[in-house]
């Protein structure tokens, strides 16, 4: 099957003073390239933790305990899938913001209040397109010195070009070293014998400690006047940021770029957050409730923007929301989560027409309808405390169809058909008969 990213039996815990919060209870999701995938559930059900685990940015006191996250990207190294939980931190840094990126809820707190918008957007280019930026700066300088006949200015330009080239060399050296390590890692990826595991360990260790810049470059960047050549890189980044903001249809980008986050409106801040995520043309965009805390008109604009981007720039979107309306509007396939479990996965149409899991049914029933006369249906009970989650199926205390087995055993995923699966004992029992 064609896949983009999949998680297998993912367990993530948070170690708090109250106890261990078992936030993810064996989450298995699978996303195909090119689709818009929805993840829906009430607050605290583990939607955000799932996607943060996928990017390995679960912050302390959280920790991914076990499971697999396989990443399949279009470049040749990733085609057979790489378990990113086994890779080094620097590998993850090269993936984050580059092939997978993320936009967050509450744009106002997601932007650093003391840095200019241009710097914050530009950082993506610094991390992932440094080589291109340096090349662009060199090209610009060469172009300029060809045009001008000012000897002194050209002399300084020549020095700058030399320095930029030394930086470029060091980046290339670093890339080569890393590529070598990655190649070897890929070769022994599936080997599980002791020697390979030790080798993998040491390779990952050395990958983290590869120095991108040699000592000389470090010094040349620090010396005042001499480091003026860095301005060329800064300008190249600025041009790219401007271009990106213009492409995204953000009005007056040259003004916005020098502003601070607090000077922008909420909708504009969310657009900037999207711009940061899209800077390096990721293959997968994860949108973590991008429209909560925005008013309805801005919500619609942001949703339209993401839908447009889906058509033009990014192939796959993983959309997290608690709003079923948004899911119906933008997604192709949906997974419903409850208390760290994936209850049901189906195409949007199937899910709304033919919900199988009792929780999904309850969820869909509790959506208010216009023609509705009687009282709004709700799911009885409250969301469990995940420090002491219910045994077996975590939904059983609130489930109207709960059986004896539900209290004791966690249900397996049961495939109703190719596109529809649910994890509920109601269906696995039917199969038995």
């Amino acid at each position, binding site marked *: 099957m064609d896949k983009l990213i999949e998680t297998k039996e993912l367990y993530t815990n948070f170690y708090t003073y109250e106890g261990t919060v078992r936030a993810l209870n064996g989450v298995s999701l699978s996303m195909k390239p090119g689709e818009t995938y929805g993840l829906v559930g009430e607050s605290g059900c583990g939607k955000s933790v799932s996607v943060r685990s996928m990017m390995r940015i679960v912050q302390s006191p959280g920790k991914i305990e076990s499971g697999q996250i396989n990443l399949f990207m279009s470049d040749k190294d990733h085609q057979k899938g790489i378990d990113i939980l086994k890779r080094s931190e*620097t590998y993850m*840094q090269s993936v984050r913001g580059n092939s997978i990126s993320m936009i967050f809820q509450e744009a106002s707190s997601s932007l650093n209040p003391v840095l200019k918008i241009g710097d914050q957007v530009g950082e993506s280019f610094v991390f992932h397109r440094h080589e291109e930026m340096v090349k662009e700066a060199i090209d610009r300088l060469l172009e300029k010195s060809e045009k001008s006949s000012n000897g002194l200015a050209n002399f300084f330009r020549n020095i700058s070009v030399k320095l930029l080239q030394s930086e470029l060399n060091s980046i290339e050296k670093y890339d080569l070293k890393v590529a070598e390590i990655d190649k070897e890692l890929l070769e022994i990826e599936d080997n599980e014998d002791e020697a390979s595991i030790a080798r993998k360990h040491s390779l990952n260790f050395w990958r983290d400690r590869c120095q991108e810049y040699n000592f000389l470059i470090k010094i040349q960047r620090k010396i005042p006047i001499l480091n003026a050549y860095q301005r060329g890189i800064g300008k190249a980044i600025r041009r790219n940021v401007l271009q990106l903001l213009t492409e995204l249809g953000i009005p007056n980008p040259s003004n916005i770029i020098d502003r601070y986050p607090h000077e922008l409106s909420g909708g504009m801040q969310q657009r900037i957050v999207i711009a*940061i995520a899209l800077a390096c043309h990721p293959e997968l965009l994860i949108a973590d409730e991008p429209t909560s805390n925005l008013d309805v008109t801005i919500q619609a604009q942001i949703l339209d923007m993401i839908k447009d981007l889906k058509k033009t720039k990014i192939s796959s979107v993983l959309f997290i929301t608690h709003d079923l309306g948004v899911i119906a509007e933008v997604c192709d396939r949906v997974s419903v989560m409850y208390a760290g479990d994936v209850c049901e996965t189906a195409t949007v149409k199937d899910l709304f027409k033919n919900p199988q899991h009792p929780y999904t049914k309850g969820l869909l029933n509790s959506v208010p309808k216009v023609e509705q006369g009687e009282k709004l249906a709700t799911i009885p009970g409250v969301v469990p405390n995940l420090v002491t989650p219910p045994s077996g199926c975590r939904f059983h205390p609130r489930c109207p169809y709960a059986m004896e087995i539900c209290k004791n055993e966690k249900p397996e995923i049961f495939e109703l058909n190719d596109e529809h699966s649910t994890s509920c004992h109601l269906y696995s029992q039917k199969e038995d008969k």
Partner: protein
Amino acid sequence: MGLLNYLIRRLLLMVVILFGVTIVVFSIMMMLPPGQRVAIYLQDERVNAEQFEALIEKYGLNDPAPVQYARWVKSVFKGDFGFSVTAQAPVVDGFKQYFPVTLELVLLSGPLIILVGILLGSAAAVNKDKPIDHFARIFSIVGYSLPTFWLGLILLMIFYGYFGLFEPGILSNEYRDVFFSEGFKSFTGLLVIDGILNNRWDVAADAFWHLVLPTINLVILSSALIMRLMRSSMLESLGQDYIRTALAKGASKKVIIAKHARRNALIPVVTISGLMMAGLMAGMVITETIFSRPGIGRWMAQASLRLDIPAIMFNVLFLSGVYVLINLVVDIIYAYIDPRIRLA
């Protein structure tokens, strides 16, 4: 132009504050009976009871308070702060003699205190619950709860008492003669810098040698608070959403700490650091007394004991001026670090 406008306004406000300080200082002095206040005008002469009354009459110490206040302010504007008995010189001359000694210590220990506090604090926050964090926390508890005089005495006992290193004072005897000799020009009053400017590196080294213990004392005691504040502020900043955004962008740990977390964490630390620098000047009383450095702290301690009112009044006025100025500097740094704060 915003900054210039702001500066002018703040400086005008400073004049008003200092005016208020003069009133407070003067009121405190006026609580003393005229007979004691006469001492201000005595330059350590012996006087009998009759002359005493005559002096009180002569200097108008029985006049209504506002009249006396006006007279005092007038003399202050002339630059005449009276005669300091403890310094055995006019107050202004005494200040010129004592201030560089204090300034030298403040200039050395101040930046060190801030640097140690900030670096240790952020290292502790980044490595939370690891050995360096435990060390920093113990260091801060110890530093914050030790009395200044006790630590000072212990340091002197260990280093000077047992090992004969770092003797108290500001210069060794042999170099004191050099310092006061004809050929030695005093440019700044700061011994280390004067030594270098006179091309007497041995003098500079000796003066620096005498600075070591008081500096260690001050750094241990004062950086504790900054470290503690920096740690908690850094922890808060590391837990913010924008750190997650930076992570998701692919930032390395180094970039996150240096570029995203630390600058935000510095905002509350700057305030405390500013107040601490001003407090350092005022808090020299004990440090300078213990290490027998003739600075304004020790001067003030002696002046208080001997009721040297002109010296006390001048120093209180001076220190409040320092406080106000440092606060102004802090506000400007504040606005530089945090763009959300406008200087208005």
